[in-house]
């Protein structure tokens, strides 16, 4: 189990995270927050790239700083924007990362084949990565994160650059892995985690705002999400008064979905989704 105990992170005088307390067990955790909210800082703390200014991060009761290589051995990390040797083929690149991960040669060869198959790059294994598209690079990134069969898998914006088919395949992979692993997915794309995450952690004002299941989080907004039909000329007035989540055109009218604490006649209450919660929390940001 991974525990974050009262962690604060300062960059000189700037406070990036304040008194964070979290516990991660096996399963998928979605870390949701808008850009600049401290998601990446939190992930960097978990992956030992940063050290807490205050507080501790423990793995199975031992501080990860003390565990050092023993902890990183169990870690798989996909950074938001990762670099690579452009002249390398994906096979050679995975081999390089495998060696850094301390994997045995024979095990590594088998694993590289499996991972390339998993992310659909077997046919391109001998192609130089400089010729790859952004989506293909991201798939190599996912493959390297899974290469050492990590106990803790940390993914920072993993679906960036992936097309809808690839995203669906990626979600499937994550779901299959989550049985016996802790998977932490940081994203600001709600749909990436809404249907696969067991838990959602939301950050606001450098602190943990909520840490619960999708269902429980959405319950908090029950009775606050409505739909109604407005005319096009009225739309800007509605947007000024309410937080409009979405809009769609139906003939000459527009159907809007919005957040309001109190309902009125003519407004149709609808079941809130995670995206509504996200916009409710961070809409103004």
């Amino acid at each position, binding site marked *: 189990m991974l525990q974050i105990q009262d962690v604060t992170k300062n960059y000189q005088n700037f406070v990036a995270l304040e008194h964070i307390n979290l516990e991660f067990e096996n399963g998928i955790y979605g870390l949701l927050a808008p850009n600049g909210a401290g998601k990446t800082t939190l992930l960097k703390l978990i992956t030992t790239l940063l*050290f807490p200014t205050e507080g501790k991060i423990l793995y199975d009761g031992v501080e990860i700083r003390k565990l050092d290589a023993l902890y990183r051995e169990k870690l798989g990390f996909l950074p938001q*924007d990762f*670099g690579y*040797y452009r002249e390398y083929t994906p096979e050679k690149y995975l081999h390089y990362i495998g060696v*850094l*991960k301390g994997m045995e040669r024979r095990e590594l060869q088998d694993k590289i084949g499996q991972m390339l198959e998993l992310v659909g790059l077997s046919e391109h294994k001998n192609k130089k990565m400089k010729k790859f598209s952004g989506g293909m690079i991201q798939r190599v990134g996912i493959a*390297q994160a899974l290469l050492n069969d990590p106990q803790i898998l940390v993914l920072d914006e993993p679906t960036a650059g992936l097309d809808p088919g690839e995203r669906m395949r990626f979600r499937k992979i994550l779901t299959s892995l989550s049985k016996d692993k802790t998977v932490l997915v940081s994203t600001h794309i709600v749909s990436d985690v809404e249907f696969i995450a067991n838990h959602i952690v939301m950050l606001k004002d450098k602190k943990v705002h909520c840490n619960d299941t999708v269902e429980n989080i959405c319950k908090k907004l029950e009775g606050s999400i409505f739909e109604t039909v407005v005319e096009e000329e009225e739309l800007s007035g509605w947007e000024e008064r309410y937080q409009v989540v979405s809009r769609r055109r139906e003939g000459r009218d527009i159907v809007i979905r919005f957040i309001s604490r109190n309902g009125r006649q003519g407004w149709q209450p609808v079941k809130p989704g995670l995206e509504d919660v996200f916009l409710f929390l961070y809409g103004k940001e």
Partner: protein
Amino acid sequence: MDCRRQEVKRILTGRLFWILFTGALVVNFWFIINYRGNVPMVAAATVLGENGVHHVTVENQEEIIAAFAGREPGNAQISVRSAVEAVPHIAEYLEAADFAEIFIEDLRLTGKAADMVRNACAPLEKLLLRDRKNDTAVSLFVPCTAGFFDLFSYFLPIACTVEASLAAVLLMLRCVNAPYDNRSKELVYTTKTGRRLNRLQTESALFTILLFAVALWGSTILLAEGVFRMGELWQVKVGSMMMLHFFYPIICRFSISLSTYMLLQAALSVCMALLFGIAAAFFVTRTHRTVTAFFIISFCCALAAAAAEIAPRDSLLFFILRFQPVEFVKKAGRWFASGAGFLSVRYYEAVFGLFWGALLLLLLIRQYKKFRLEDI
């Protein structure tokens, strides 16, 4: 599998290594080929060596002069006859004090510094006596060739040292800073190897620098042998020939052959390259910026060179600063600053090379420990 082996493989299969190596060989070949006019003189000296003529004596003077007749280069400052006839006399009358004065004049020393040189040269008298007895004081090389000996005592060692040092800096910067340069730092430092990778990369780069320098020296000497066919001339006792090499080899301070001399030069050159490699590793681990680290190294060398140049020449402190620890950096600094001045065989350079090496190594270890605890 060993990370070091993988890093070495990565450097050796990289373009930079081979561009630097090929470039260095082309420059050295250009140096060598510029001296191809001396091939007939070298051939004559080789034949003399094969015929058992290794020293200049009053008895074999005419044989030597005849062997070189008609082969003298047009730009020679002194004729073979004049040199060969002068050698036995110079060997007889040259004293240790003369060496000291040449050294003092060359470096424009005065006061206590000059006195120190005179005292340091006094014990040479015994060596001169020994060399007069065993004839190494009058060893025969290739006379009156307008700098053929410079090629081996000066230009090739300079070229190899500069090329190896430059390659050392570039290879080290490229290797150690790769995670920062190609933005893979977040990925590689979270693997099991973690920040230990920095040390492993430093060690791998040092190994490839060693390979580079040794291969460069080996290839250069092979090229020289291919062009000049030196044969037995590699065995000529040269020692401090560089003192008077402008016309002929005469006195040997250290009784060593040309091949041993070149080997010592190569060893110093390799040490120099490693030293620059360690310096590059230190600065790049500190700054994480390749270009910044390169400029800091250049600036430090230029600063040391400037300090040594402007220091007063009559003080003991200046002498120690210039010819002991600072000399090593100064010589490197000159290249970075103005492209002049390099190594010669002086034992204290090796000693202070080790001194600087140890100092830099300690700084590097300290920086590495700091890096393990810093935020990325």
